[in-house]
């Protein structure tokens, strides 16, 4: 499909005449996880502009702090004290081990709560946006080694992710997780560490090629003195280099915030986040700079307002162009959450069927592979990860075998059910209802038109219909047939796309 838009027309709103059911599904799958029928109806009724205003509210819903994160924050100072004052080496090791274990449990608690929260339709767009920002402002639990800080970091992205980008970047420079991840706390007046300054220019604001090594060296001096005290940012004036620096051809006794302001004065800052949005939401094949330039100029004039950028991008002719329909590979978290939404399920409350599943599909939550985050696209797919995706579908269509769960998992299951979270798999009664209320053609249409993002051929449709109606002598066989059809359609290459 040829991209036949002019750079001027590209970012103009989609004409109302082209706002239809297909466009609505494209929107929902790309800004969120799936196109659930009631959500499709809703955005069609409300219209594109009003829907985007709702999907990207000025204030996003905030993920409540998971109980084990709260406990960790509360107990950590006391633990640290105990570890410091432990009398023997052995006691110290025992305490350290306990602390690591609590980190691990808190992490599981966080991931599961995050998945549950994200799977709610009203949070899908903002949580995906937060995921997008966390792929720019990357931190990894691997190095941060404090899951409460990792939670705080994402909370910050959630709270300020739809405001002005410069303000967000300044907050990120004070985020404890980031300070540890990019070694700011080791940056001293006489020995500035360049890690943060480099990533600030390369990965947060400008992109490679828009700064010199000298700019980094000078900027690093401005970020000296950023410290942590009692889990919070603290500025140590004694460790701060307050002498003159020359960054991007201007000289002054710049502070860290000044440097961030200087970076946003450069034209390259306008195109950087749009470039990242394209990569995260639209296509692995980059758009030519001719397209990005006008959007970048416009965004700069808004004062780098992230919400305005989202509203404009997701309503543009570019975003809805046929060249970008149904051809983007779902990241593992979207594959998982999309299944949960498409099948109206709840997120399983134990790691084996959530955290571990994501890891097997190649996305280890809160542990991106490096400072650049995930490359994504085709790199998500190999025989192993594809197998894991197919396995997940099988798992979701078979009842939880509670006998094979260990005691921790059984406890988690009981606790979740007590909170009314209990639908983790597609049970027979739901398939039965479907069989009783829908015709074969309706079921085929439901599977192919709701689940798959591409227009499928008549022969494909008739293959599915034939399979669905083969060997259906008894009720049990009909249910088994329906289950098998759903499983195969959701395992198909097409369902890996959005």
């Amino acid at each position, binding site marked *: 499909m040829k991209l036949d838009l002019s750079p001027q027309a590209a970012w103009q709103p989609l004409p109302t005449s082209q706002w239809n059911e297909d466009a609505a599904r494209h929107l929902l799958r790309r800004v969120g996880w799936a196109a659930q029928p009631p959500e499709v109806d809703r955005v069609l009724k409300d219209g594109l502009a009003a829907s985007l205003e709702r999907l990207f509210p000025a204030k996003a819903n905030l993920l409540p702090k998971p109980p084990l994160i709260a406990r960790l924050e509360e107990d950590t100072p006391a633990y640290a004290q105990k570890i410091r004052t432990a009398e023997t080496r052995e006691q110290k*090791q025992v305490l350290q081990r306990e602390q690591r274990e609590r980190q691990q449990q808190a992490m599981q608690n966080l991931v599961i709560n995050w998945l549950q929260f994200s799977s709610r339709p009203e949070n899908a767009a903002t949580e995906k946006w937060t995921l997008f920002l966390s792929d720019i402002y990357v931190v990894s639990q691997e190095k941060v080694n404090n899951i409460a800080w990792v939670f705080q970091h994402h909370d910050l992205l959630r709270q300020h992710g739809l405001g002005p980008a410069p303000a967000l970047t300044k907050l990120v420079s004070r985020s404890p997780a980031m300070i540890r991840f990019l070694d700011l706390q080791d940056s001293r007046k006489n020995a500035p560490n360049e890690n943060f300054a480099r990533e600030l220019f390369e990965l947060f604001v400008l992109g490679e090629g828009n700064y010199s090594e000298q700019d980094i060296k000078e900027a690093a001096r401005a970020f000296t003195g950023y410290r942590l005290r009692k889990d919070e940012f603290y500025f140590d004036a004694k460790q701060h280099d307050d002498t003159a620096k020359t960054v991007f051809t201007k000289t002054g006794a710049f502070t860290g915030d000044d440097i961030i302001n200087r970076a946003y004065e450069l034209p390259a800052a306008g195109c950087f986040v749009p470039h990242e949005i394209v990569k995260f939401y639209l296509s692995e094949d980059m758009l030519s700079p001719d397209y990005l330039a006008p959007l970048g100029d416009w965004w700069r004039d808004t004062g780098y307002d992230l919400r305005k950028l989202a509203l404009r991008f997701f309503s543009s002719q570019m975003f809805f162009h046929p060249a970008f329909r149904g051809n983007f590979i779902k990241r593992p978290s979207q594959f998982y959450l999309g299944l949960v939404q498409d099948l109206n399920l709840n997120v399983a409350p134990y790691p084996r069927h959530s955290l571990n599943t994501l890891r097997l599909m190649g996305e280890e939550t809160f542990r991106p592979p490096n400072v650049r985050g995930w490359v994504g696209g085709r790199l998500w797919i190999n*025989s192993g990860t594809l197998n894991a995706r197919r396995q997940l579908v099988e798992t979701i269509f078979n009842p939880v075998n509670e006998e094979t769960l260990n005691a921790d998992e059984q406890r988690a299951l009981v606790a979740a059910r007590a909170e009314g979270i209990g639908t983790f798999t597609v049970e027979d009664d739901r398939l039965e209802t479907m069989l009783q209320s829908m015709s074969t053609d309706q079921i085929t249409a439901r599977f192919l038109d709701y689940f798959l993002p591409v227009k499928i051929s008549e022969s494909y449709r008739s293959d599915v219909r034939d399979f669905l109606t083969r060997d259906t002598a008894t009720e049990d066989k009909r249910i088994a047939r329906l289950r098998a059809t759903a499983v195969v359609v959701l395992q198909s290459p097409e369902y890996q796309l959005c």
Partner: protein
Amino acid sequence: MNNLHRFLPTTRREFLSWGGRGIGLLAFSQFAPSFLVESTLAATPSPEKDRSILVLVQLAGGNDGLNTVIPYEDADYYRLRPTIGIKKEDAIRLDDTLGLHPSLAALHTLMQDGRAGIIQNVGYPNPNHSHFRSSEIWETGSDSEKFLPTGWIGRFLDNDCTGTPGTAGTGGDPVAVHVTNELPQSFFADKPHATFGLRSGGGRGNRENLAFLEKLVKDDDHEANANASFLRATMMDALVTEQRVQKVIGGYRPESAYPGNNFAQSLRNVAALIASGMSTRVYFVSLGGFDTHSNQVNNHSNLLRTLSEGLAAFQQDLVSKKLDSQVLTMTFSEFGRRPNENESRGTDHGTAAPLFVMGSGIKGPLHGTAPSLKLEKNRDLSFSTDFRQVYATVLDKWFACPTTQVLGKTYEPLPFI
């Protein structure tokens, strides 16, 4: 099932013969898995079939070691386990102090024939009591304090040791096969390897679904985009392997009577794949339910019987097929259980435990030392053999692979091989 329309050749020979029948190779190669096309073009011979194979058997949930190998002369054992302890007269005598749980009769016979052994009291320093974490430690082979992103088998495959098949699907066979729902962490690797997941127990009855999926993968009449084509090609590769595996399993005639349970049937399927001459080096099978916190006597007894009879049928099958010299089987569990029983006539999470090794020419039957039970309530066993010594033995003596590259340091091997 055999009259189902087949869409693709499943072996290289079949593929070549299709080519010979005038089906254009280039026209075909659009759908054919890359390994078939490549090996046809290069006309490379298949790799040698003689190779050592490891079968890992996971006892998931934490197997109660003290009720597996019973110190029947130790008064402390009966002090710690007044109700669930195995009585001296019930234990199958191994030597003057130790006996096997009565459910392990079949394994005991193997030991008498020199085909199985026990490594006692295996664990690691600073043990962790979480299922999740302790499994991770066992499967990655890490220290308790360290987190490793890759598994010990994965690193074995990464290291391309002597006799390790190539990474890019030599001959199209998966290098490692797991008969579990999830890819075991042991298989996590830095480089991509062709691994394959076989459904636990059966695996049959799915062939029709598989054929249907394959049909959908091939049906690309609708407008294709580059990513869709890429996904189809990758999935086709995986499906061809799966179809071939299903064919092998469906047509297998075992030489011993496997019990009907899932675990034994999984082992039967592993035997089928081994007998078919696939170049796979590692198989991973799991038996769950060992997390016996309450009323464990009957449960544990049944689990051990399932284990013992399944393993014995598997070994018997391999012996009859003269494959036994190629295959080493080894059990492991994330931890053993607390020496003292709890208030619910069960046991809580513990530390070290014995594990079984099985194969022709296993030396033994007992290796390492039994744990001391001079313990107060709620204290744990202290391990005497590090689990990585077992891995080192397997890597070094079985796979002829430099162990330090895989395990990070050197561990003293054990004399069971």
